[in-house]
């Protein structure tokens, strides 16, 4: 039996979520349509509010309710070091590991198969910052996947004329590891043992 069209459409919406397969998408869709109308209205309101109230910091591109964000406007932070991460969730992980410098959120990793090229990342914005501020070190903190590696190589090539010291996280992170799952201790060790990209 085939599902009716509106139901199929809803299932498809859920299937676009990261890590959601067809079976879970089905479960979520069924869960939703079994809810009261009032609850669904609340849910859709929450989505719209989140989208409209959460802004992107125009400097570091992190998600925040203020622009510029709390990190970019914090005078106690070290303004000479900038840490490049792919997503806001990685920024949160590194901040928990007690990094005291600035960040720049790239908005993804280069992945041609998903249609993401360098132009889709916030590299232009980053280069703009490098011109303005006195940045002494750029730390590239990306997943050690093939996409993370490719992005690291690309950034290194683009940024080396603009900054003398470009480093990456050191050992301690296992190969293929995703930053967001690394614990604080591992991350702070990886930060301490960072190495120059050659």
């Amino acid at each position, binding site marked *: 039996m085939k599902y009716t069209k509106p139901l199929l459409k809803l299932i498809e919406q859920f299937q676009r979520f990261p890590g959601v*397969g*067809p*079976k879970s998408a089905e479960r979520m869709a069924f869960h939703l349509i079994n809810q009261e109308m009032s609850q669904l209205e609340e849910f859709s309101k929450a989505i719209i509010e989140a989208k409209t109230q959460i802004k992107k910091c125009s400097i570091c591109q992190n998600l925040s309710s203020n622009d510029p964000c709390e990190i970019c406007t914090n005078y106690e932070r070290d303004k000479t070091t900038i840490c490049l991460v792919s997503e806001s969730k990685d920024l949160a992980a590194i901040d928990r590991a007690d990094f005291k410098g600035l960040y720049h959120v790239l908005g993804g990793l*280069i*992945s*041609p*198969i998903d*249609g993401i*090229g*360098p132009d889709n990342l916030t590299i232009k914005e980053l280069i703009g910052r490098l011109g303005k501020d006195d940045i002494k070190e750029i730390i590239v903190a990306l997943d050690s*996947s*093939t*996409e993370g*590696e*490719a*992005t690291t*190589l*690309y950034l290194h*090539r683009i940024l080396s004329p603009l900054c003398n010291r470009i480093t990456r996280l050191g050992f301690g992170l296992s*190969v*293929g590891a995703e930053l967001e799952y690394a614990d604080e201790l591992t991350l702070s060790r990886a930060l301490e043992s960072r190495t120059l990209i050659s």
Partner: protein
Amino acid sequence: MFLKKLKLTNFRNYADFEQEFNTLKTIIIGPNAQGKTNILEAINILATSVSDRAERDSNLVSWNNEYALIFADIQTKDDNLNIALQINSSGRRKLKINGVAKRAPQADLLGNFFCVMFSCEDLYLIKGSPSVRRSWLDSILFQLDIKYHKALQDYQKSVTQKNALLKNSYESGMSRKALKEQLDIWNEQIINFGSEILIKRLGFIEEIKVVAREFQKNISKGNEELDLIYQSTVTGITSNIDQMKISFKKSLEESFEKEIARGQSVIGPHRDDLTFLINEKEAKSFASQGQQRSIVLALKLSELKVIEHRKGEIPVLLLDDVFAELDESRQDFLLHNLPPNIQTFITTTHISDIQKELLENAKVIKIESGKVLNLVG
């Protein structure tokens, strides 16, 4: 190695299969399409993590089920090994080894249990497409070298990304300069992982070549000299990793325009092949049916030897319907060149295809529609 117990749940056409083995030989008998090969396939997955028959993991799960379970009790040379593998139809896996959950179900499975599968399909090794020979190399190297699997996985990911980039660039009319910049970042990884793969493949071929040559000589009563040559799309392959990377880089540079024109990555181990020579003539074009069978037999026996040599364990041998394909003298040769205490699983539709000698002290399992009928012997 000795497989003491195998349990399958919702695997292929087995809702529930459980058998203990205490004889060196197990004969699995039944009409076509009843599930004989499925049992060998499950055992083989425990060693290689892949199945050459299943295009994707979901094919291994019984229809209308969410997951399959393979559970095995194994006796190694000096220990007990217990493997529990869950294969979800979504493609995800879970693995426990000796009760401990593993983080990387594909990679962590490898290097624990070893086997050699010999089936009718192996006869395509000589005349089939290059991908058949590459899969053969890969399935052995997965068992021999844990790092090989990881390198191949990362290599394939990089090739997929590079192909997508070549395709996108064509559609979006990307500038040559931008394309070159972006190709470089994938090529760098392709060179690193690809060189590692090439070195490991070459090392294995050097090793198996010596053994296979000896077997071939004996099967042919001294008439046939077998040779294996790795045919790479990379020019100037060597056994030195740094030198290999240089050669790889050069080959990629030389094929830059060609790859763009084809919109595809054409240089590297994913495009390589293996040539078999008999008395310096290419077996693909010249070997007779009988000679092809001899070569495959020699290769399979060599595979056993190399795994045993490198791992210090005798692998489990899986013979899928091969006796119908081998004449009496080749059957004899196979049987007389096996290690004496090797555990062997044999499938057949007709017990008459199997030599009397093999039936001695063998356990016989009759299979019908994914069920064990009765036990004899």
